[in-house]
């Protein structure tokens, strides 16, 4: 268990996702990384049936194959407050008991799956994101296992990322770590920088949720699938870490 950073990989024009993934995988292998199985992160969102007086609530249920015994869920009560929960895998069945109150939005079921590589202390996962069998983009997960505080190992992760992705990664910490709001003792929300906190598995899941939400919103903006009036909650932050777009090496 270490620190994980999620990095979306910009798709260059005229290239297919499978091609890029294949290319990146080959690069990793030639670096000396070993192929170590597959991975899958999926997310399903349940929306409460609208009742007068209460805002629409959304429950995001995520699974990560790296934590096979757990189900992660994050509730967004519509006013910006989020509560996260880690539970046994059976939590999924409990959600099904509430189908009359919380209905699953099947068309927004989104997942990232792909190959998993190990390279020394790093674990790298090349995920292709699909929603309803439609390819949405590439998400690269990189984990540095010996450390659990981002600020101590960010530089190393960044260098590693730049090394095999061939793109420039901004020097600043990823936005997930800098823009978290927490509740203080007085019950007020305040901005909190997370890079010095101990990293938890929930952080990985929250990063995935953030990116998944972006992909869904993207669909909505382009009038693709989400024409059913789905309201994606919470402020959505476009990742600002991707600065240099384009391949460093041909």
């Amino acid at each position, binding site marked *: 268990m270490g620190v994980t950073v999620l990095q979306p990989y910009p798709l260059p024009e005229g290239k297919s996702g499978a091609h890029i993934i294949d290319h990146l995988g080959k690069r990793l292998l030639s670096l000396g990384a070993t192929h170590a199985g597959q991975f899958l992160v999926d997310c399903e969102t349940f929306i409460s049936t609208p009742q007068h007086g209460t805002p629409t609530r959304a429950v995001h249920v995520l699974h990560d194959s790296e*934590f096979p015994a*757990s*189900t*992660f869920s994050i509730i967004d009560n519509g006013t910006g407050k989020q509560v996260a929960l*880690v*539970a*046994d895998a059976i939590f999924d069945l409990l959600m099904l008991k509430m189908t009359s109150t919380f209905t699953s939005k099947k068309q927004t079921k989104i997942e990232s799956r792909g190959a998993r590589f190990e390279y020394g202390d790093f674990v790298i996962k090349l995920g292709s994101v699909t929603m309803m069998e439609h390819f949405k983009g590439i998400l690269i997960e990189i984990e540095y296992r010996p450390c659990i505080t981002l600020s101590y190992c960010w530089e190393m992760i960044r260098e590693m990322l730049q090394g095999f992705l061939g793109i420039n990664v901004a020097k600043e910490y990823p936005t997930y770590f800098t823009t978290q709001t927490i509740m203080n003792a007085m019950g007020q929300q305040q901005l909190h920088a997370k890079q010095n906190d101990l990293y938890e*598995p929930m952080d990985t899941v929250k990063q995935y949720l953030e990116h998944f939400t972006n992909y869904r919103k993207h669909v909505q903006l382009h009038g693709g699938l989400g024409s059913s009036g789905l309201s994606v909650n919470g402020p959505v932050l476009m990742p600002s870490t991707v600065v240099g777009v384009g391949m460093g090496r041909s």
Partner: protein
Amino acid sequence: MSNSVNISVETTCENQIREIAYDGTELYQPPPTLSESLAKCAARIDFSKTSLDDLKKEEKSAAAAEDKEDKDNQFQESLWPWDAVRNKLKDAYTEICVLSDVISIAKDKRYLVLDPLLEDGDDTKAIVQVYSRKKALSQAAQVLLGGAERLRTAHSEQRSRNVSDFHIELLRLRQNWRLKKVSNGAIIGDLSYRTAGSKFGMSGTFEVTKAEDTLDEEGGAGTSATASAASSASSSNNGMQLKASSALRVIVPAELQGVAYIKVITQKDQEDLCTAQVNLMGHGPNITAQVGVWQKTLEFAQNVLFCKELFAQLAREAIQLQAPIPHVVIGNQIRATLLPNIQLIISLCHSTSFDSSQPAPINDHDHVLEHSLHQLLREVHYKNSHHPFPHPASAPLGPSKKRMLAGPTAADREALLDMTKTQTILEQIIAQAQHIFMRKRTQYVLDTLARDVKDPQIVSHWNAMNSPTMSCVKINIVTHGYDAIGRTSLVIHVKERSLKCICRDGRVMRLSYEPQELRDLILCQINSHQISCLVSLARCMAWTVLSNSNHLGIGKVEPLGNASSCLLASPNSDRMIAVQIRCDPQIDVKVYIARSPRQDFFPSPLVPEKFWENLGGNFKEVRFDKIEGKSFLNKMEFLMASLTSNTA
């Protein structure tokens, strides 16, 4: 019925026949109801006769009369059933009325006077009453005392004859063993470890019976002198007839009879390195003396069961385990390879007939391994029966504590995989045996080195606290008399198949199980110890260290160290000492000296001037073994001192 012949009449078991039809069918009268029979009984009471004798007579006559009455009843069916009773009560009432009238008249003493008939009511005096009671009580006490005396004599007689009571024995048996009574009256006991968590299939039931009387007689003759003989007899004839004075007999199934033990041998080639014998005997308090000889029988049988379970478990694991050199299970023997040429042999010995020619218990057995085998099986039992309780209480029963936490703490795949792995008993035993062997080997190497190498001294401290698969030794290398100048210390962790050496400078070296590697390492450490001490000593004596090297790279190149050397110059730089220490195959010290300028100078055509001599001269080897001194450092000190004084 009314003639003079006496006949006895009994009520028939069945109901009375009311009518016999023409075809012979008998119609029965329905049995009287409760109220009818009550009325009938009430009618029989003769209220006029109340004394016991009268009643008895009455019974006879009533029985005779009954038949008559029955006949009558048939004719007086219409009468109210309680009529006779009412009449009699009425008569009684009349009598009571008359009596009360008489008494009331007598009270007036005008018409009637009541006089006592006889003067016999006097003895109701208190003192007489007390006396009579006392007498009655003393008689009763006499009876009780007599009875108690009889019981006591019977009891003491029984004890003196040493005839034990079956039930007392059974009670004692019940206190130590699980017994139950089965339907046909037999008593079945269970000596298996199932209640302690064992899942071994073999049944451990035994039967408890009462010994025959003839045996009792024999036992009575044998008496108490044969306590030890009896126990040996019982051990030899498990389940056979016990020749001891026990009224209770236990019958153990044939497969649990006899004596069994598990023999563990560590073997190098064909030579036994250490052996261990595992059985349960002699563990726990000996309670045979307090209870019966059957205790011994059952303990032996339980031991057989334990050994069989242990062996069965080990054999199963040996077959399942995927070892680089496969384990071999043949008959009652398991062979596993610990290290090259070294084998662990575990065998189950079970003999049903006890003979005195059996080899005497081996004195040189390995208590540790023995204990571990026991402990490991017990641990398996314990784990089978002791599951952690869930908290909070509504959580499911079964998963381990770690697994319960895995969900909410988001345990990753590796952690979950680790939870499923467990070490089998055989693996643990092999690991422990390997460790024992490695430890012995390390001890041997260190001890022989300490014996062979007198200078410097090698002192090893073994940690008293260690785990079954890891121990730790600290080694100090010092030179006697020069302890303050230098000391080399290193720590060796002895594991299952490897050693880990940690030196003072932080270097960590991993050695294999080959003893030569450790030997080489220690020799190299001695080398560097000598050189580093010499350097410190030289500084103390104001000599200059020109160079020193711990790894000259000459001779056999070892990965752990090599020959080392050192070059010293005297305070005024006119003399030099060169030292080289090699460590292969044993420590070899070479010392050379050179002086410049030479004191005697003879000019030659090539070297015309004396100052050329300052360039340094030829090194001459010193016959180091001839130098005065106890140790290398001592000799060097003398050498340096003499060279220094020469120049002065």
